[in-house]
């Protein structure tokens, strides 16, 4: 070789690490890792514009009236109770284990995976609030009601399938949900007990 081959100097990449560190730190600062959690609820569909106020006849025994006043007091049917008692009360209502005539009526229903069952699928829990009810009381009530359903579903899942509801297969979960459908209705707020 007559001519000496020129060596191309390598690009000094030692600072790339620093650059990417800076990027990393930027993302660490501007983003948040906290997974958002919350109580998932589903609103009823909007009423049809030409729909009349069709009062759906619900037997009195099938309804659990939960009322909240502006002071945050809780009334279930005709009793004042504490929020902590609500879960037990709701469970008793939804399950109606002894088929009492004061609690929701039971129907024979053929559920895939569970067979013939007697379920209280006509029950409704009606939550009525005042415009002045504090949100945290309302939230607690919702939480307790959902907890009641979850506990009942878990109990049923363990009795029938030997595993808690969360760990069941999709089909079994559907069966359990058909047995205990979540029926929490929210009426328009009224002014209870002044403002």
């Amino acid at each position, binding site marked *: 070789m007559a001519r000496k081959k020129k060596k191309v100097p390598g690009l000094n990449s030692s600072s790339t690490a620093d650059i990417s560190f800076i*990027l990393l730190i930027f993302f660490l600062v501007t983003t948040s890792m906290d997974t*958002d*959690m*919350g109580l998932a609820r589903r*609103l009823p*569909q909007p009423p049809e514009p030409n729909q009349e106020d069709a009062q759906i006849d619900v037997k009195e025994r099938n309804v659990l009236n939960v009322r909240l006043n502006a002071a945050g007091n809780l009334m279930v049917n005709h009793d004042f109770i504490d929020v902590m008692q609500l879960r037990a009360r709701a469970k008793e209502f939804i399950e109606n284990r002894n088929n009492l005539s004061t609690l929701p009526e039971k129907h024979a229903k053929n559920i895939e995976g569970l067979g013939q069952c007697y379920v209280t699928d006509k029950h409704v829990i009606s939550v009525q609030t005042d415009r*002045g009810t504090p949100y945290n009381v309302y939230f607690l009530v919702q939480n307790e009601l959902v907890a009641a359903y979850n506990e009942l579903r878990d109990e049923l899942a363990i009795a029938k399938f030997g595993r808690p509801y969360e760990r069941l297969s999709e089909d079994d979960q559907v069966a359990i949900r058909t047995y205990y459908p979540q029926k929490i209705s929210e009426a328009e707020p009224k002014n209870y007990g002044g403002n």
Partner: protein
Amino acid sequence: MAKKQGNREMPEMNTSSLPDLIFTILFFFMIVTTMREVTLKVKFTVPSGTELEKLEKKSCVSFIYVGPPTDQLRAQMGSGTRIQLNDRYAEPREVMDFVAQERTTMSDPASQVMSMKIDQNTQMGIITDIKEVLRKSWALKINYSATRRN
């Protein structure tokens, strides 16, 4: 040559893969975290509950913040309960436009979830108003944001 001379040099560590390593961490963080989208103009402490579910699809979630204005803004805005949508205060009826606008940016509008971050001491009246508007705009999946309590 070096061996012949006998003065052994410590070999330098090869750091050429270090940037790749850091980039991997960077991408990890970019994927698992979310950008802080809005500057909060209301302050709120969400209630705590036990029966909470995680918000799954981050891209399908829109946030509604309800609470009193932050301390800096209280002088101008008062201390009444306010609704914040994106970067500004809004009235309950404006929620409908907000829902529609959020829907256009979503890949899967059917699974739109409205996450409501509401201060504990809010009165239910304003929340009922929002819920009524959400119903009318067919945003039926809602999520009351909360912290876990044992």
